[in-house]
Every structure is written in C-alpha cells, then in structure tokens.
C-alpha cells in the first residue's frame, strides 16, 4: 500500500471516531450549548498534507458518516467538507503548514466555513434548520474549538504518519558530472 493510502485510511478512521464522539458525547454541548465539530480540522490536514484523491475520499466518508447520524439530508456535509479541503489544498504550496499560528487560523476559518456552507446548502434544498441570533454564538464556539484543536490534531496525525508511513527520500544536490576533483597540477 502506498504512503498516501495509509494516510487516507488514518484520516477516514479519524472521521469515523470524530463523528462517533460528537454523537455520543455531550459534555461540551452541556457547557456551551454547542456541539463542536472536528471534521473541518481533518479536512484542513488532508488538504495540506495529502493528495486530491485523499481529500475527496475524506470529505465523502466524513460527510456521509456525519449526515447518517444527523437529521441532515445525505450529502450536505460531503459538499461543505470537500469545499473546505479543496480550498486548503489549492494553497498547500504557499501556506506555512508547520507554523502553529497558521494552523490555528486555518482551523478557525474551516470551523466557521463548514457549518455556514452546510446551512446554505440545507436552506437552498428547502430545509428549515433551527436558526436564530444564538446561532452566531454557536458558530463562534465551533470556530474557536476548531482553531484550538488544529495544532493538537496536527501533532497526532504527524506522529501517526511517522509511525505508519515511510519517509520520502530527499533529493541530493550532488551531481557527479559537476564534481570538482582536486589534484596536483
């Protein structure tokens, strides 16, 4: 199995565990009245470190699993998660992925964008979700939680990548045809 294949499996398993945790655990919901969502953070990671196929598969599995436990119509979260992952993957070569502030900022934006896109899709599909002024508070909590979770999850995924995936060889700058050989004249 290729390196990216193992990363894809790790990310899909992370999506599954994340949705299960969100559905079965209500501690944060009881404190803040909001259930936080880890899936956008996983999409940020897949967008930065994995290929396009992994981004697609992670969005598909994460979105389907989330919608299967929710009253959302099937497919709503697939689209929103994919858009988050795709936008991040567009800038993967220019973003400072090792910088903690950048990670937090990306997590914040993803945590904010994912529910907003989901709500827009839901409403355009004719559904009437529960919305009010307090939804702004819920969006803020979700974005902040995503921002806080991003560096932590990046650490975990990096460790798992180091354990399960082999490292890519770095290309040496040495070229035998341009070697300067010192010898006596």
């Amino acid at each position, binding site marked *: 199995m290729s390196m990216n294949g193992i990363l894809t499996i790790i990310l899909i398993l992370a999506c599954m565990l994340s949705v299960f945790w969100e*559905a079965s655990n209500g501690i944060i919901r009881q404190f803040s009245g909001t259930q936080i969502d880890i899936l956008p953070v996983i999409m940020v990671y897949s967008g930065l470190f994995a290929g396009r196929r992994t981004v697609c598969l992670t969005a598909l599995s994460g979105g389907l699993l989330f919608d299967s436990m929710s*009253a959302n119509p099937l*497919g709503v979260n697939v689209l929103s998660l994919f858009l988050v992952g795709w936008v991040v993957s567009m800038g993967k070569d220019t973003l400072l992925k090792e910088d903690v502030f950048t990670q937090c900022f990306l997590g914040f934006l993803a945590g904010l964008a994912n529910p907003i896109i989901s709500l827009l899709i839901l409403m355009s599909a004719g559904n009437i979700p*529960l919305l009010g002024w307090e939804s702004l508070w819920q969006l803020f909590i979700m974005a902040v939680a995503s921002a806080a979770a991003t560096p932590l999850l990046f650490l975990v995924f990096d460790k798992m990548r180091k354990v399960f995936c082999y490292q890519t060889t770095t290309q040496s700058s040495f070229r035998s045809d341009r070697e300067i050989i010192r010898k006596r004249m």
Partner: protein
Amino acid sequence: MHRKPRYLSVIIILLTALILISLPKDFSHKLKLIIGGVFIPLFGVTQSTSQVVDKAVDTALPKSFLISELERLQKENSRLRAQYFQGRTALAENNNLRELLELEKQQPWNLKLAEVVGRDPANWWRTIQIDIGSRDGVRTNYPVLTPGGLVGRISDVGFNRSQVALVGDPQCQVAGMIEETRENGILVPATTDLIDHRYAIMTFLPGTEALKIGQNVITSGMGNVFPKGIVIGQVVDFQVVDFGLYAEAKIKLAVNMNRLEKVWVKFP
C-alpha cells in the same frame, strides 16, 4: 496533464453530493441507516464498557448505603402499589361509565423501554438515536416519552435503531393544550433559545386573557400522533403576536432534553 485530474475529482465529488442530496427521501433514509450501521460496534463497545463500569461501581458501594436504598425503594413500592390499585379502580369505573355512554374503551398504554445511544452532531437539529428499531416493531410517528413528560416522536426507523425528533425540533410540531383553560395551540421550536434545549414556543393561542405563568401544557390529542394528556411543560412567558391576532407562550419543557438516557416508546 496536471490540471485535468484536479478538476475531474472536483466534478466527481460535486456530482456525487448533488445526487445524494436530491435522492428520494425514503431511499436517502435507508441509505443513511445503512451507513450509520458502521457505528454499531462502537456503540456496542460503549454500552458494554458502561455496563462493566456500573457493575464495578455497584460492587464498591457500601452495605449501609444499599440497605438504606432498599428501605427507600420498599417504601416507594408500597406507595406506588396503593396508587396502582386506586388507579385500577378509577379505570374500571371510567370504563363502566364509557360503556354506559357508548364511548370507546380506553386502552392501557403499550410501552417499550429504549436507551439513548446518540445525539444529532449538528447544532441546527434536535434529534436523538435510540437502540430499538423495526425489528422491535417501531414505526414512524410513534410517541416517545419519559415519566416526566413528552420527549418527541419517531422520525426515522432503521432495523435496530431509530431517530427521535425531540419537542422543539422543526420536524416535531405538537398539538398542545393549556390544561387549566383547555385552549389549544401548536408547539414549535423556540428560535430565541437555541443554546438551552429546555424551551419551546406554543403558538396560535386565542389570546392572553386566560394565560398565566405556571399553567400546565399537555398534548391535546389532535393530529392523531400524540395521545391526549401527556405532560409537555409549563408556561413561563407569553405575548400577543401580529397585532393581537393570536398569542404565543414560552413553554419550559417538563423533560430536560440534554439529560435523556432512557425513554419509552408508546406502541398503539
């Protein structure tokens, strides 16, 4: 060469999502339940773990506590037995009177206990998942309650789990009645209390003259989904809407939806 697959994957995923969203409701529900089946082993592990923890806690309890608990339960049992006999006599009397008036006899409720295994991970719905489904005879629209009052209705049924739309969710609108004044209204979600799940709005009430804070709200039995007389909550606030056309009351639900663990599904 580099650009083609990028946009191909985008098109594939967009098409997949659009097809999924536009699937017929029945097929989409079935597909959801199949996908949700992935979580069954995880829910099983959680349940068995909590059972083991409960057993461990039970064995660690001191004997004095168990004796005092036994005494309390014995007292409660005898009190409930007395109430049961009183209720049974009243029911027989009621049935006799109904027979005299040629009214249909009241049937005792057929209830089945279910455990709450999951909650909606989305913040814009109020639904829960319970561990009984079509194999136990559950069908959509069956009322769900606790000893405290109404919880909601079955909105989706799978083979071994079901989704319950809670009171206060857009999918669960309940025909309610103010117990004291017999005024009818409809319970709809409270969009001003999204963080606290203990409130709902009772709308289309005739006026505020007869409304008082603390009045009880029960199901009116209209709509044939919920039987008449299940406790919903209490009036905590009210106001006139649309230039006095009708009134709305804020209802504090009798059941705390955040702390549901076990619920009863009422079978016909």
